[in-house]
């Protein structure tokens, strides 16, 4: 009788409102935190950090950010790549202009700058809706990439327009640059992911989250019952862009170490993060993690199985990868249109009633 609500009475509204109302979930969550913070750092190597965990964590932040905009506030955006570029270039400019300030501050500020840019590009959402808005956000995507490529000030007038992250440390431990340990990269990202998920959870369960969801579910009714659509949409754009900006900054500083705007933050990045949101599940923080994990792990897994395990030529394997990812996306949508998060919820509900079928 592990997974039960029965007998687990709540005596206050605060208790009733907690994130994991079921005891078993709560303990599982604590266990996961202990493992993530206390165990993984001791066993992580370069491959697991750079090929799997660091990109997973960074994309999880971006996915949480985009999920706030699409999943919670219902505003479809394809400008993610452009906003990540803002985060990356803001952190680069800050790092090189104020080397004495901590990189953590720079990353947070980069998020703040991205939030402002996001708000500016969110303004059309007051007039434009649905797929039209999605296409409109592409204007942000293309314009921002063009801008960072075009204006040499953004890349400190380097010959090619590539930006490279200089070496920076936190508490005397390198987190960027060539001499960085896998565990340090992982820990920085983990702390940001943990904080992002916690902030996002708080924002989505309170007043602000409800205004977003009200706009998402029925914007006209929401306005009539007292939601200021300007405020709700712009805060959603701001919060979403804040997280996306942080993800962009981390992607550049901690993960890649060097970036070229068109290649690292192009339109394909916008789509990638959108896939993560939808596969994970709209309007779910857990789904954001699941979606990011799926899209980061699956190609690596397939590559290892097809090329490493079955010794296929890399090109045939790469083509098969597309075929399989595509087929899986379709299969998922047919089986569970509301993403991995919904799959998880259904499984939990079944478990709660187990062994009785209903």
């Amino acid at each position: 009788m592990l997974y039960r609500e029965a007998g687990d009475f709540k005596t206050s509204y605060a208790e009733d409102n907690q994130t994991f109302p079921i005891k078993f979930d709560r303990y599982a969550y604590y266990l996961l935190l202990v493992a993530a913070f206390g165990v993984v750092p001791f066993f992580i190597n370069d491959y697991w950090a750079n090929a799997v965990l660091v990109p997973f964590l960074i994309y999880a932040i971006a996915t949480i950010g985009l999920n706030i905009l699409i999943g919670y506030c219902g505003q479809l955006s394809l400008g993610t790549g452009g906003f990540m570029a803002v985060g990356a270039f803001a952190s680069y400019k800050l790092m090189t202009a104020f080397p004495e300030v901590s990189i953590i501050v720079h990353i947070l500020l980069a998020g703040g700058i991205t939030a402002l840019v996001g708000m500016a590009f969110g303004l059309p959402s007051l007039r434009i809706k649905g797929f039209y808005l999605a296409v409109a956000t592409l204007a942000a995507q293309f314009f921002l990439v063009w801008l960072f490529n075009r204006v040499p000030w953004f890349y400190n007038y380097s010959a090619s327009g590539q930006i490279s992250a200089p070496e920076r440390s936190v508490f005397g431990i390198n987190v960027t640059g060539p001499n960085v340990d896998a565990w340090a990269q992982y820990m920085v990202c983990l702390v940001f992911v943990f904080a992002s998920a916690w902030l996002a959870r708080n924002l989505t369960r309170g007043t602000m989250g409800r205004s977003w969801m009200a706009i998402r579910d029925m914007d006209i009714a929401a306005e009539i019952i007292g939601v200021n659509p300007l405020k709700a949409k712009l805060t959603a754009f701001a919060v979403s862009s804040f997280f996306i900006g942080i993800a962009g900054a981390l992607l550049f500083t901690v993960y890649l170490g060097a970036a070229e705007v068109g290649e690292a933050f192009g339109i394909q990045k916008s789509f990638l993060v959108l896939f993560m949101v939808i596969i994970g599940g709209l309007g779910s923080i857990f789904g954001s993690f699941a979606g990011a994990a799926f899209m980061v792990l699956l190609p690596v897994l397939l590559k290892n199985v097809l090329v490493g395990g079955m010794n296929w030529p890399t090109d045939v394997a790469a083509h098969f990868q597309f075929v399989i990812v595509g087929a899986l996306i379709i299969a998922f949508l047919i089986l569970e249109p509301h993403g991995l998060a919904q799959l998880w919820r259904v499984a939990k509900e079944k478990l709660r009633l187990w062994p009785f079928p209903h």
Partner: protein
Amino acid sequence: MSAEFYYGVEVFLNGLMAGVMYSLVALGFVLIFKASGIFNYAQGVMALFAAMTLVGLQTGQVPFSHLINATFGVHITHFGWELPALVAIFLTVLVMILFAFLVERLVLKHLVNQEPIILFMATIGLAYFMEGFGDLMWGSDIKKLDVGIPQGGNVWVENHTAFLGGDDFYGFYLDTLDIIAALVAIVLVTVLVLFSQYTKTGRALRAVADDHQAALSVGISLRTIWVIVWSIAGFVALVAGIMWGSKSGVQFSLSLIALKALPVLMLGGFTSIPGAIVGGLIIGVGEKMFDFLIGSPYLGGATENWFAYVLALLFLVFRPQGLFGEKIIERV
């Protein structure tokens, strides 16, 4: 008039031509969106796939030759025959119809009544699938597409306009391929309009576009309609693929032409065939003129990609219902 003015006119004309090429891609989107409310992200990949299939059939390539070679250690690439262009086109159309049938069978049938975003996502999955499948089938190397369409500056136009701008002016430059594309687009749109006005299937299509439920209730089979619409969209994709492929060869980037069609859709509306044409012309002219007047001289060029979107965005902010949409009265 100074040569500068005629250069402007020339850019304008070329903008119109480029716009037609965008419209060809946008048309495919509109057809599917109109009939099924699906924003078909795979439209670009469909164009690539159609063009690859056309070249493959025409040059007698062995499908899946990479896979066969890798699995059996043999070495085959071509059957050794070549097909006339028209036969190959006809066969490709059959392949696209088969494709439409399979999409309906394997994907859409299971997703009836889902939200638009889910259907959109499914087409993204479809795009991924086809990208890999097309490459597996025909290989990812670049292929030359030649169905006999001439290209290059149209000499007749040049010679007959050279007198306009003085010694420095060569006459208007218009690509023959673009002119043909424009003619094809006109024919295509006319046929589509006639088809939807005067045939039974066409009327059924329009009925479905107006109201799914109502159409179902008078006995129109939604599934048949979807197969037909996707077939037509496949055909339009083939036309777009031929036009673009003749220009740049057939390879991966061909699928990215979809990005050129999106601002056109915003401007013209997702449901209007004339909108796709007029929107394409406006975007084509707008981005070329902006680059000519402002982008190249003052901003360092390469402004077309984002300007097309910004133009569409500005337009929408002032007219959210698009070019041909009626003013929306919101109700609660």
